C-alpha cells in the first residue's frame, strides 16, 4: 500500500514543465512546423502561403515522402536502407522502358512499384538469409547495383514522354471549381491525395495490425520478439520489401511529375529520407517513431527548402542549415530523454 502512496506523492511533485514533456513529445514537431510557416509567411507574405506555392511544396514532397515512409519502417527495426534513391531511379527507368516499348498505361503504371517491390525483397533476403552483418552493407551494395542496372537498361540517357494517365499521378490537378467558382485556379494536386492515402494506410498497418506491432518489437528487442515466437527474418523481409515498394511508388509519382526518367533521379534522396525520419523523431536505434512524425519531418524539409529558395538563399547555405537542423533535432531528443529518465 505504501508503494501506491509514494507513487502519488511523486506525481504531485512533478513540475508543470515535466508534465508538459509528453505534450511536446507528441505535438512539439507540429508546433515547429506552425512556427516555420508563420515566420516564412511574415518574410514572404505574398508568395509563401499562396495556393500555387503550397501545392508546389506538396508536389515536391510527395515522392520524397514515399522514400521517407519506407526508410522509417526500416529504421524502426533498427535497420537502414541506403538503396531507396537507387530503387526510385531503377523503377523510373523500368517504367520509362515499358512505356517506350508501347505497353498499355496500366501495365506501365504497375512496373515501377513492382520493380521497387523486387528490389526491396532482394535487400531483405540479403540481410536475413545471407546473414549480412548489417543492413548498411547490403543496401550500400545495392545502392550501386540498382543504379548501375538502371543505367545499363536505359543506356544512361534520359527517356521522356509518358502517357497522360501516368502524368496525372505526379502532376494531376483536382479542380476546386465547386468552391472557388468556374475556372478558378485553385486545385489540389493528385499526388497530395495519394500521399495522404498511403500515409494513412501505413499508419493503420503500423499501429493497428499484429505485424506492425512486431516491427516495433523487433526494433525494441529482437531477442524478445524471437522468444515470443515471431519469425523475425520474415518480418524483416516484409519491411524491406515494403520499403522498396514505396520507393517504387515514389518513382511512379516522380515519373508523372517530371514526365521523364533521368540517370540522376533520386540521387542522394536516401539521405534526405533518413534526415526526414530523424527530424521526425524516430530513433536511429530502432523501436521509436511515428508515421505522423515522418510526415512532419518530410514537411519540415520541404518547407525549409521551399522557403529558402523563395528568399534566394544559396543551395550551399541550405545544405548547412539542413545539416544543422538534423543535429539540433536529435540533440533536443537527447535532452528530452535525459529529462524523462530523471523523473
Amino acid at each position, binding site marked *: 500500500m505504501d*508503494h*501506491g502512496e509514494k*507513487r502519488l506523492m511523486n506525481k504531485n511533485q512533478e513540475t508543470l514543465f515535466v508534465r508538459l514533456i509528453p505534450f511536446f513529445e507528441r505535438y512539439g514537431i507540429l508546433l515547429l512546423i506552425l512556427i516555420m510557416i508563420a515566420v516564412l509567411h511574415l518574410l514572404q507574405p505574398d508568395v509563401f502561403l499562396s495556393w500555387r506555392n503550397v501545392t508546389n511544396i506538396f508536389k515536391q514532397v510527395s515522392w520524397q515522402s514515399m522514400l521517407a515512409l519506407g526508410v522509417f519502417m526500416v529504421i524502426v527495426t533498427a535497420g537502414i536502407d541506403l538503396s531507396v534513391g537507387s530503387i526510385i531511379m531503377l523503377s523510373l527507368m523500368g517504367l520509362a522502358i515499358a512505356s517506350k516499348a508501347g505497353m498499355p498505361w496500366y501495365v506501365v503504371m504497375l512496373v515501377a512499384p513492382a520493380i521497387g517491390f523486387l528490389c526491396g525483397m532482394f535487400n531483405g533476403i540479403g540481410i536475413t538469409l545471407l546473414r549480412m552483418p548489417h543492413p548498411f552493407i547490403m543496401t550500400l551494395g545495392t545502392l550501386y547495383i540498382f543504379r548501375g542496372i538502371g543505367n545499363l537498361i536505359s543506356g544512361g540517357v534520359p527517356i521522356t514522354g509518358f502517357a497522360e494517365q501516368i502524368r496525372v499521378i505526379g502532376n494531376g490537378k483536382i479542380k476546386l471549381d465547386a468552391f472557388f467558382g468556374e475556372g478558378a485556379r485553385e486545385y489540389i494536386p493528385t499526388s497530395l491525395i495519394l500521399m495522404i492515402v498511403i500515409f494513412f494506410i501505413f499508419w*493503420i498497418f503500423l*499501429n*493497428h*495490425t*499484429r505485424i*506492425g*506491432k*512486431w516491427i*516495433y*518489437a523487433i*526494433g*525494441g*528487442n529482437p*531477442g*524478445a*520478439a524471437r*522468444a*515470443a*515466437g*515471431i519469425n523475425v527474418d520474415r518480418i524483416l523481409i516484409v519491411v524491406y520489401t515494403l520499403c522498396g515498394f514505396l520507393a517504387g511508388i515514389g518513382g511512379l509519382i516522380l515519373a508523372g511529375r517530371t514526365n521523364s526518367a533521368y540517370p540522376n533521379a533520386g540521387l542522394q534522396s536516401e539521405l534526405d529520407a533518413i534526415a526526414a525520419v530523424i527530424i521526425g523523431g524516430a530513433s536511429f536505434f*530502432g*523501436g*521509436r517513431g511515428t508515421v505522423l512524425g515522418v510526415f512532419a519531418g518530410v514537411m519540415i524539409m520541404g518547407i525549409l527548402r521551399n522557403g529558402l529558395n523563395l528568399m534566394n538563399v544559396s543551395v550551399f547555405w541550405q545544405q548547412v542549415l539542413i545539416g544543422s537542423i538534423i543535429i539540433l533535432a536529435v540533440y533536443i531528443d537527447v535532452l528530452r530523454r535525459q529529462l524523462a529518465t530523471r523523473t
Partner: protein
Amino acid sequence: MSDELVLEAKSVSKFFGTITALQNVDLHLNKGEVLGVVGDNGAGKSTLMKVLSGLYKPSEGALFFDKEKVTLNSPRDSQNLGLEMVYQDLALAGNLPIGDNIFLGREPTRKVGPFNFLDHKKRKQLTEEHLAKLKINVKSADQKVEELSGGQRQAVAIARATAFNAKIVLMDEPTAALAVKEVGKVLDLILNLKKLGVSVIVISHRMDDIFTVCDRVMALFQGTNFAESELKNTSRDEVIGWIMGKKD
C-alpha cells in the same frame, strides 16, 4: 499442495559432443508446487531447463507432462502443453507498453471485413485483469517497460509467462538482477502463482529465495542428481554444502 504429478523427467541425459551436460537426471513436479533447483555454475541447471522447455532435445531419457510421454521439438510445443519459461534476460521489448509485451506474438485481434486488426481495448482489459489477478502494481498497463524498475520488469515477464493459463512456469534466476527491496515482491508473486495452482521451478543461487518460496529443493552437481529434500527437512547450510558437492 496436491500430489498430482504435472511434469516428470526420467533419466534425462544431454551430451554436447564429448561433453556430458546432464547424466541420468530425474525431476518431478506436482501441481501447485514450487521446486527449487540449485547447483554451481556448470552443474546443468540451465541445460535441464532448456530440455524441459523444448529448446534442447534430450540425448537420452523421456519427458512426461500430466503423466503422458511427450516429445518436444521446440518451445512452442511445451507452451502448448502449458509450460512457460521466464528468461534470465527477461525477453521484453522496452519500447513497448506492458500490455503489448504480455501479449506479444499472441495479440488479441478483431476482424473488420477480411482484415485482422489489433483489439487495443481488449488487450488493455485483459492486461489489467491479469495484473490484478497476480496483484502486480503498476501505474498503468500502457506504461512502457523501459520506464519500470527491475522488479516490475520481472513481474511483467512473469505476467507474460502466465497470461495464457500456464500450468508450469520455469524461472531462471528471477531475482538475480534486482535491488534488495524488490526481491520480496517477486517472491510474493511466485507464492501467488502457487496459490493459483501453478507449478513453478525456480533456479536460484540465493538461499533466501529458495527458503522463502520453495516446497522442495533439488541439487545438481556436475550434471547429475546430487541431493533432494522437502524444504522443511533441510537447512541452508546443508543446501549450500550440496551446491559445493558435500554431503554428510
